[in-house]
């Protein structure tokens, strides 16, 4: 029983990270109806740029963060202006392939400029283990969960309490209607990409400081976010939260109970099996809108 509770708590802590990553995908989808297959690549790209600034170039953190923000802003403007704006109104295939190809460009850049084995980021937390009854909690995963929670809440406040958040919600409802109310939709798109990439960076840096930076796990984190988003429903922020934690817990339970039976690796596949079941029984996700179409 203790083992079970331990696994569930570990799962919730990892799930917080998944939920945050899923939030980034949901933000972009809500505002511009583009499903961001490049999220994993963005996680890798931003965290490697962060590493480049911090470690080889030895910049202090107060200089690194503004530079990183400028970098993210440039990337999000370029994505919107050069790729997604010309593709407005094109088929589903184009939209999907555009973000996949974008991901390939970023993957290529990461593999080209930062090849080889993993790199280490400075640790932001000293690793200690807390005991809560019979359950062990490592301070690192606790802190990363808290950071994710804070990011999530900050975004929610921004989304629901500020004027720009209102513009974003308006754009999510209907592009033409938002435009007629004087909202600059293209600017909303750029900002939602900016937020999404920044969130990707937060996730990548947290994960990098915990486990070291290497391309595969960072990319995998982003890809799992896709599973979370589809499980939770494409347009739903609540769905991202619940889906993230559900997938985190499912993964932890699989690694605890199924791995000994099949000889390891079950946690890699469980998110996708959960997703497959969800697709069969509830195709639009737990909290997604069902689309009704007319010919």
């Amino acid at each position, binding site marked *: 029983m203790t083992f079970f509770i331990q696994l569930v708590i570990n799962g919730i802590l990892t799930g917080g990270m998944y939920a945050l990553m899923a939030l980034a995908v949901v933000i972009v989808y809500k505002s511009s109806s583009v499903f961001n297959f490049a999220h994993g690549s963005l996680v890798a790209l931003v965290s490697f740029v962060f590493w480049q600034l911090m470690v080889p170039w030895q910049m202090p953190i107060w200089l690194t963060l503004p530079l990183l923000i400028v970098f993210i802003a440039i990337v999000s403007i370029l994505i919107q202006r050069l790729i997604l704006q010309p593709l407005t109104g094109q088929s589903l295939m184009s939209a999907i392939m555009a973000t996949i190809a*974008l991901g*390939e460009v970023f993957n*290529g850049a990461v*593999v080209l*400029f930062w090849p*080889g084995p993993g790199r280490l980021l400075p640790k932001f937390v000293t690793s200690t283990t807390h005991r809560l009854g019979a359950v062990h909690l490592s301070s690192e995963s606790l802190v990363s969960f808290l950071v994710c929670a804070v990011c999530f809440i900050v975004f929610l406040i921004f989304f629901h309490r500020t004027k720009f958040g209102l513009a974003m919600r308006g754009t999510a409802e209907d592009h033409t209607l938002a435009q007629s109310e004087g909202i600059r939709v293209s600017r909303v798109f750029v900002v939602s990409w900016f937020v999404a990439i920044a969130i990707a960076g937060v996730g990548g840096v947290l994960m990098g400081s915990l486990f070291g930076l290497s391309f595969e796990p960072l990319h995998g984190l982003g890809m799992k976010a896709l599973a979370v988003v589809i499980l939770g429903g494409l347009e739903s922020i609540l769905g991202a939260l619940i889906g993230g934690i559900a997938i985190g817990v499912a993964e932890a339970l699989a690694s605890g109970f199924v791995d000994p039976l099949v000889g390891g*690796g079950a946690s890699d*596949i469980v998110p996708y099996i959960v997703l497959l079941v969800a697709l069969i029984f509830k195709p639009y996700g737990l909290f997604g809108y069902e689309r009704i179409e007319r010919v």
Partner: protein
Amino acid sequence: MKYKPCGTFDQTYEQDNALVRTRFRWAMLSALLVFIFVLFPCLAGDYLLDVAINIGITIIAVIGLQIIVGFTGQISLGHAAFMAVGAYVSAMLSFHLNWSFWIAFPVAALTSGLMGLLVSIPALRIRGFYIAVTTLVAHYIIMWSILHGGWVTGGLTGMSSHEVTIGGFSIGTERRYYFLTMVLTAAAIFLTVNLTRTKIGRAFVAVRDNDLAAEFMGINVFKTKVLAFFLSSVYAGVAGSLLAHYQGIITVEQFTLMDSIWMLGMIIIGGHSVLGAIMGVCFLKVLQQIILIVAPTIGQLVPSLAGSAVAGSMQLFFGAVIILFLVFEPRGLSHRWRLTWSIFDLWPFPY
């Protein structure tokens, strides 16, 4: 849009239906066939033949993908996994049971097809984007099962397979395998071009253009989609089986998500037709060869990038090329090709 050269009139039903209509086109086609089956294998060395075999195998796979993407309008991100099913079934039958290629090959194609059929069953309830995700999930599950299959699939070490023989005559060398591949590729092209002109092919296109409207016209949308996935996976299985017996050993690393994406990229670059699939494959494979030649030079100029120049720049250029095509020529090379030919066909009296 199919133009006939200026002044060519159809007087019989057969003429109207002909795939190759004029003498000039017959001459061009014959020249191409002579080049592929006589001239090229006589002149080319083993390396070029290897590239050509790879192009041929990829053409078969991409034409299969084209049935889903170009004709039926669904998106499959799991095509490489279906190829893997074909390759592994073929190799396992050859390795464990000592079956000859000629029995293992159809069984592999059929198994792969059934796998595609299974994956497409959720298509009853979902469409578009969600089908793409289902195939993505299928990719992960299939590749995971192969990787954790133990001695049955060989796991990380991969699976080896026997040489192909025809009645004691071994097809082990590049030159001999080249003919096998090209014959099958030509057959795949011929079959698919004709498939688009049958009732099934037209049903695919109707589902692509609007599935609700297609349903009102009496097409069983679910059956059509499942059939498209089945056929497409059969092609993938054929390609996978060919690849397995050509290389002699296959591993899971040869069938990654990247490969599925490359195949989708080939369709974007080529355009949504059989011709487009062929052109896209040739374009990307040639680009790949150019990068293989040029990238080490970049590595020499900038030593810090030497280790990763090939892998990194391959992905970088691939992504960039696809984005450029999406933005500037979304209908692909084959559209541009047709436009160019129609100028010659209509000359001297454009109407």
